[in-house]
């Protein structure tokens, strides 16, 4: 290879090699910083994700390579000096450059040029200017450390550190969500709520991740964020369906409560039974028409809803004296309302899921910000649908069938009714008895809360809360609602009787 071409190739390879080395150094520095940051999470619970570390390392490498490639390209003199040193050319190429530039004059120039050409022919540029990266093994090892840490060692914390406190909160929230999700799934399956089953499964999956020893606060927030999005979209689907059935949608969701729809649907059921009677007295007919009018005025139902239309047709047929067709219309309205109530209940269930998930996210967020007392999470009251303040007919006589109050807020319609799977409670939390004694807190009967300190591994069989425990939980919820809300005394009595009957029907 002629000296001219030799230098050209060497300059190009020097440039590329410099860019590669710069990229390698940038990778090394960034990965080392990332790894140190990962180690720092053992003490301080700051957010750090593997993709951030890898992306910043790649960006730094690319930027360093670009700068090194573009900034001050190697001069021919530099390339000549490099080749002289690495190939043992004893400054032949450097001197050749000076000769070519006319800076040296001697009668030995011709001999020198001949000498340089001969020496240049023996130069292997690839060997003289290699493009291999000398520290790639170290860089690869460091990258492996970063990945291994993220996959298997993330979540490791030192005792008595902020990171450990956050990890404990995350695991506790994971266990809590897991228990709730198990109960939700059972309830959703029992009621045939497809969306609710899916979301409960999703919550369980996320909860498993949160309860694992590798969970971190940042990752938990990420997972819970995704879960919130999943719940939001599921709720939107249900709300769309409910809106198609006539439910008005407000900023917080449907303005219609499922128990209100159930109450209307029950009145329609009684109305349908009344229409089945052979003879209908004028007073009864007038009463039926009044009931129809009142039902049409039920708040939260849009006038163009299928139930409304069916009821209007029923009223028209009743005025025309066609009781059979009117009964058929009432039945259609009843079915539409039943479907609407089912959708609203499922949506309400998802709303409860979402509130629990948001509560967990809030707890973890507080822990990440260094807020004290993570145990307060356990003391948070259980979520349940809020009792509306503007219930229709709240002041009416409970003996009057027209103003009879609605069913219970969420679980079961009547004492003793419903399926046994409705009454299954959350699973007993798994105890890590092999590590250290742990406290188990729970209810073992009506209204009583027990705490036990266990030193042995817990049983790993399927755990189910007995029916009495569910009723106790509902009683407790009801007590809290009745205490917190302004509820007339007559309704308080009704609720007390309802749950008393429910407790009697238990095992």
């Amino acid at each position, binding site marked *: 290879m002629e000296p001219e071409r030799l230098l050209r190739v060497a300059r190009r390879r020097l440039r590329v090699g*410099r860019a590669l080395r710069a990229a390698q150094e940038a990778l090394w520095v960034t990965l080392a910083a990332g790894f140190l940051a990962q180690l720092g999470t053992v003490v301080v619970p700051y957010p750090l994700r593997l993709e951030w570390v890898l992306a910043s390392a790649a960006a730094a490498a690319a930027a360093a390579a670009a700068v090194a490639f573009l900034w001050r390209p*190697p001069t021919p003199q530099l*390339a000549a000096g490099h080749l002289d040193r690495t190939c043992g050319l004893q400054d032949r190429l450097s001197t050749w450059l000076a000769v070519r530039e006319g800076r040296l004059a001697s009668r030995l120039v011709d001999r020198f040029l001949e000498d340089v050409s001969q020496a240049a022919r023996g130069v292997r540029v690839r060997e003289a200017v290699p493009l291999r990266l000398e520290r790639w093994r170290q860089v690869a090892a460091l990258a492996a450390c970063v990945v291994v840490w993220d996959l298997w060692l993330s979540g490791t914390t030192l005792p008595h550190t902020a990171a450990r406190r956050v990890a404990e909160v995350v695991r506790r929230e994971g266990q809590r969500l897991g228990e709730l999700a198990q109960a939700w799934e059972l309830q959703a399956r029992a009621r045939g709520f497809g969306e609710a089953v899916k979301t409960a499964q999703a919550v369980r999956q996320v909860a498993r991740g949160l309860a694992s020893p590798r969970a971190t606060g940042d990752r938990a927030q990420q997972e819970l964020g995704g879960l919130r999005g999943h719940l939001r979209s599921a709720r939107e689907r249900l709300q769309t369906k409910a809106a198609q059935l006539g439910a008005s949608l407000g900023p917080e969701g449907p303005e219609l409560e499922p128990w209100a729809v159930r109450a209307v649907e029950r009145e329609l059921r009684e109305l349908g039974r009344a229409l089945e009677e052979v003879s209908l007295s004028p007073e009864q007919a007038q009463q039926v028409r009044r009931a129809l009018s009142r039902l049409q005025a039920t708040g939260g139902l849009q006038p163009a809803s299928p139930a409304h239309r069916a009821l209007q047709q029923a009223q028209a047929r009743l005025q025309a004296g066609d009781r059979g067709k009117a009964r058929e219309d009432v039945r259609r309205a009843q079915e539409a309302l039943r479907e609407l109530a089912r959708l609203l209940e499922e949506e309400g269930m998802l709303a409860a899921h979402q509130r629990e998930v948001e509560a967990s996210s809030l707890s973890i967020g507080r822990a990440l910000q260094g807020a004290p007392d993570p145990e307060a999470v356990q003391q948070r009251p259980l979520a349940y649908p809020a009792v509306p303040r503007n219930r229709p007919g709240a002041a009416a006589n409970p003996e009057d069938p027209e103003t009879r109050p609605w069913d219970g807020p969420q679980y079961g319609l009547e004492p003793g009714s419903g399926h046994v799977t409705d009454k299954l409670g959350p699973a007993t939390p798994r105890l890590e008895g092999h590590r250290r004694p742990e406290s188990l807190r729970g209810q073992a009967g009506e209204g009583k809360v027990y705490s036990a300190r266990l030193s042995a591994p817990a049983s790993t069989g399927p755990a189910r809360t007995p029916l009495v425990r569910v009723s106790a939980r509902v009683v407790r919820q009801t007590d809290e609602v009745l205490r917190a809300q302004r509820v007339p005394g007559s309704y308080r009595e009704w609720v007390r009787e309802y749950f008393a009957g429910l407790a009697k029907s238990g095992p």
Partner: protein
Amino acid sequence: MDVGEFHTLYQRIRSELARVVVGHEEVVEGVLLAVLSGGHALLEGVPGVGKTLLVKTLARVLGLKFSRIQFTPDLMPADVVGTNVLVQDAEGRRWLTFQRGPIFSQIVLADEINRATPKTQSALLEAMQEGAVTVAGVSYPLERPFFVLATQNPIEMEGTYPLPEAQLDRFLFKLRVPFPDTQAVVEILERTTGAQVPEVQPVAEADGVLRMQALVREVLTAPHVQAYVARLVEATHPQGPRPARAAKRWVRYGASPRGAQALLLAAKARALVHGRVHVSVEDVRAVALPALRHRLLLNFEAEAEGIDPDHVVREVVEEVPEATPAAGARP
């Protein structure tokens, strides 16, 4: 003379010298480099290691006029350069005529030069630098080529006069002649104690040596090599802009620009001797020790710590980076 002839002649000179001088490859090469560079050399070594023999043999091999001056404390400058003497002919007429001293030769062996007084030592200054001698206002040019090859004994301090710095600076090289190893001593015994003493034949003549010197000056030197030489010399100055650490610590005064000239000339000669027509940084490094060791004036600290100038030169060479051919990014 072309490079091929140069090499042939050089090899013949080496071969002839090797017939008499046993071992001392580096010293022989150093002396020859000094000769080819047109410089003078100071040989330092204990008595009996072959310094005088080397010089005498070299003079014979090169076919040059040789004279030997045994320096003693009572040696006067006129004994070296010559003097005007009053001459009277048969008719009684008198006149002054210049009686040439032993300096009027081509290879002058100044044996044990440090035994003479500084005044006598200084008599060599003009001859070494200018190639001429001035007596009573009359300048007498010396026949070219002209070399002073001086010897001195490093262990005898009694009755010696260390060479003044100006005198030392005139020497291109200061070569240390080590004690030969066992094998070399055996070889010396074999050659010198038998019935047949090896003889050498002249293989060159004055003109040939001059042409070799001229060719040495034709050797190409890249700018970055010159910059390296300058940087090396500059680094020996503790008060300079970029002194080496060793120089800052142990040197009182560094090498002169004459030292830089000597360094480059010797490097050129070495390059040619090694078959190249251009100087490399490696050549400069190779001759840095003999070319600079006698030009450094060490300070009291160095003397107190027993630091040798060779040590300082080695550290300076090690510290000064090889000059980048031109400004540009490092690879």
